[in-house]
């Protein structure tokens, strides 16, 4: 009893597992973001008219903007629910540094929101008339992009934690920060459609992810610590 047997990795896995268990139990909430993504994407052909040429040109942008908005949906509850029922204290006392707790929650957000978005992006892209050969570029970009969105979103959610009207502040914080991901992600698909080289865009997206991966959990950890004081 002098010190707990679990190592840091085991603790991280335990926190991640707890979040995945919670998401599985509330499957309707978890799937809501994906359904929102598909529905919002399906509205564009209705609003813009069924011209295949127009839709094909706009498809990368539509898919990316819808993914960005859909990833925002569950962020409000990511840490908010933990703060309300006192679980945040338990998480802060789980023996992991605060940034590691934040990273575990962010990873859970990606697995439960980003990954399903990725799966739903292919049918949505096809529906909007994206040529099949450009789909791998779209999915590769979205794979990196959804991770960036989870990281940025998790950071913002932790920072606004405990603030009045945090739910309104959250998109105002995330959306401007996410613009580089949006630009490069959509540009890669555009380039692939035009037969140009799409590697530079995805590399820049990867660089953005490489920057966000250490920075966002650190900022999120500071936010969590401030909220739990």
């Amino acid at each position, binding site marked *: 009893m*002098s*010190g*707990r047997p679990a190592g840091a990795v085991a*603790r991280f896995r335990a926190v991640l597992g707890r979040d995945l*268990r*919670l998401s599985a*139990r509330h499957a309707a909430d978890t799937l809501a973001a994906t359904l929102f993504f598909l529905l919002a994407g399906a509205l564009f052909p209705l609003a813009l008219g069924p011209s295949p040429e127009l839709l094909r040109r706009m498809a990368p942008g539509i898919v990316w903007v819808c993914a960005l908005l859909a990833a925002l949906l569950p962020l409000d509850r990511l840490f908010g629910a933990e703060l309300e029922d006192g679980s945040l204290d338990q998480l802060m*006392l*789980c023996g992991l540094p605060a940034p590691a707790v934040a990273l575990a929650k962010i990873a859970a957000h990606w697995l439960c929101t980003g990954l399903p978005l990725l799966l739903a992006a292919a049918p949505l892209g096809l529906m909007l008339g994206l040529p099949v050969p450009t789909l791998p570029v779209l999915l590769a970009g979205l794979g990196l992009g959804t991770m960036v969105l989870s990281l940025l979103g998790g950071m913002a959610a932790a920072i606004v934690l405990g603030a009045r009207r945090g739910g309104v502040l959250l998109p105002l914080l995330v959306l401007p920060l996410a613009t580089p991901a949006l630009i490069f992600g959509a540009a890669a698909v555009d380039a692939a459609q035009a037969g140009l080289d799409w590697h530079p865009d995805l590399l820049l997206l990867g660089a953005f992810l490489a920057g966000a991966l250490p920075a966002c959990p650190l900022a999120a950890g500071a936010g969590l610590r401030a909220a739990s004081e």
Partner: protein
Amino acid sequence: MTLPAEPAPSPPLLQATGLAILRGERLVLAGLDLELGRGGALLLTGPNGAGKSTLLRALAGLCPLDAGRLLWNGLDVFADPAAHAGRIAHLGHQDALKPGLTLRENLLLAAALGGGDIAASLDLFGLLALAGLPARLLSAGQRRRAALARVHLLGAPLWLLDEPSLGLDHAALDRLGAVLATHRAAGGLVVAATHVGLPLPDAFVLRLGA
């Protein structure tokens, strides 16, 4: 607990000197000293807003100190907050149970962290029969007992309990007394805040904000 049985008087394991904590503009605690050795218990009393919960959170390392030092075994707690977190089981005024998860699932994280046996901890508080029930179906007292079972499950030497008897009936209070006695007999420390008194024989009493 594998702590050696030391002859009395045991040296203080938890030691705080000159603690001061500001909440906003208000000085909640000032110049507070305390010491607690193996098997020791400390009861925090005082009116609402006297800083009992704040002191417990400060001892947990959740709330930064504005002055003073907090030592565990002679070492500064804030030098390694993650290690200190591993020594602590904190019971807040909220039960921190997820309503959608069963009682057992709610305790899985604590079991993974502490390596304890969920069934044994639930049984101590008479909850074993309810283990498969979603937490939202439990009564307030049962939820409190579940939160106490989590404290036990964490297997930590220092228990920080904020109003642990909230909503407990007499039988549950007796169970709590037995668990606390076992924990102390094994060398564990208890710091508890209460209004109503707790089954903690020969505990030091610290009256705050009098």
